[in-house]
């Protein structure tokens, strides 16, 4: 008889992973958006409202959105690898896709903003204490306007995974932060784009705060060989769908 393997003590990550699984069992979230109070992501505890949102018709103002144009965005803003005197380190990538409303109509000439860690998983931010190297040739912020087809396109470096302090040995899967405007103020979206096949998804409370598996898939870019530029950069496609206005059926509980 061989001896039983030594029992490993339960780690903090084990507890969080359990909590993630438990949270995924409750009712599906409307539109796939995360609940603001989500225990595995500890900072939500004091930052999520305790009162229900108040349902209100969007005002005429809220049915419009700020307009951005050529004067707001320089052509080089969309290439995060040319913001310095030299080339940043890491894997050069192209990230492109379309911004659509829920009816599938392109959101044209609207602002898309991104920010991200460098290839080592370090942000060019004073508050980032991860002891990974800064890259003097990479800041990690970019902007562009969508074209008439709703398409955006960035050239950047594949960001690294990084540790954070949610719990012991917590790591964020590699991601690019995205900020989007629609044609109505109510369509505003800030989200994160992930890369396919990341082993950290199931361990990460932020990715997992989206509990529906299909909704999770909508956060993950697709490797696309046609987007890949020969001898130069790997390509990823990621389409973004903005809420409303008026495209979501009324929630019977709220009408």
């Amino acid at each position, binding site marked *: 008889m061989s001896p039983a393997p030594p029992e490993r003590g339960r780690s903090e990550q084990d507890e969080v992973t359990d909590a993630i699984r438990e949270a995924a069992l409750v009712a599906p979230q409307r*539109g*796939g*958006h995360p*609940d*603001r109070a*989500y225990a595995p*992501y500890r900072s*939500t505890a*004091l*930052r*999520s*409202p*305790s*009162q229900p*949102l*108040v*349902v*209100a*018709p*969007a*005002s*005429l*103002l*809220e049915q*419009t959105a*700020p*307009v*951005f*144009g050529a*004067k707001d965005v320089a052509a080089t803003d969309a290439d995060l690898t040319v913001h310095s005197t030299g080339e940043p380190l890491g894997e050069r990538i192209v990230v492109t896709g379309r911004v659509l409303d*829920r009816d*599938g109509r392109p959101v044209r000439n609207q602002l898309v*903003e991104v*920010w991200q860690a460098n290839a080592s998983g370090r*942000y060019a931010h004073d*508050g980032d204490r991860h002891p990974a190297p800064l890259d003097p040739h990479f800041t*990690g*912020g970019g902007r562009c306007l969508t074209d008439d087809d709703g398409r955006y396109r960035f050239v950047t470096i594949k960001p690294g995974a990084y540790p954070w302090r949610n719990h012991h040995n917590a790591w964020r899967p590699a991601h690019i*932060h995205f900020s989007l405007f629609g044609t109505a103020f*109510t*369509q*505003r979206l*800030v*989200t*994160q784009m992930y890369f396919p096949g990341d082993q950290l998804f199931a361990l990460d409370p932020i990715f997992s*705060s989206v509990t529906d598996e*299909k*909704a999770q898939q*909508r*956060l993950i870019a697709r490797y696309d060989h046609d987007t890949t530029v020969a001898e130069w950069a790997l390509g990823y496609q990621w389409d973004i*769908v*903005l*809420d*409303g*206005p008026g495209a*979501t*059926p*009324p*929630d019977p509980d*709220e009408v």
Partner: protein
Amino acid sequence: MTLDPSPSQTVGPFFAFGLPFDGGGDVVPPGTAGAISLHGTVRDGAGAPVPDALLEFWQAGPDGRIAARAGSLVRDGRSFTGFARVPTDRSGDYVIRTLRPGPVAGSAEAPHLAVTVFARGLLHHLFTRVYFPNHTEANAADPLLSALPEERAATLMAIPDGWFGGPGYRFDVRLQGPGETVFLDLISEAGAVR
């Protein structure tokens, strides 16, 4: 065709080099006639200041017109674009300089600023509104304000508190707990859009 929306994710702690821009809070330049400061503190459920929140404001001009004009990110110092974006500072405070909005023609609502709140620890942004106390009649007829209990409606009202530089209004954001700000699930006629 109805597509499912892309889910929201938190803005995280490191948006400071991605989103804020120079002059983000200067909807109008210093010295503009009629300019007000709108300022306040963002606090969490324990009453602690939130130093890593980001606020966006969208508004009509004093003439009630909604600008459809580029140039919010690179301001030219004379065009009113109606958009502001400011991070909170170490003390959870923010400030913008703007003009009070006028009534939008055909709008059932009293003049207001539309506000979006982002923060680390907030998985999905929050919408709210800033109203001004001097529009007594319009506020009394406002569909949202008039439907709320008085103490909740009060969380949406800017409080005049002039400062050394001129007229000012305070608008605090309480994410949770006593005095919690009213946050909105905005719907259009066809349904929820939040």
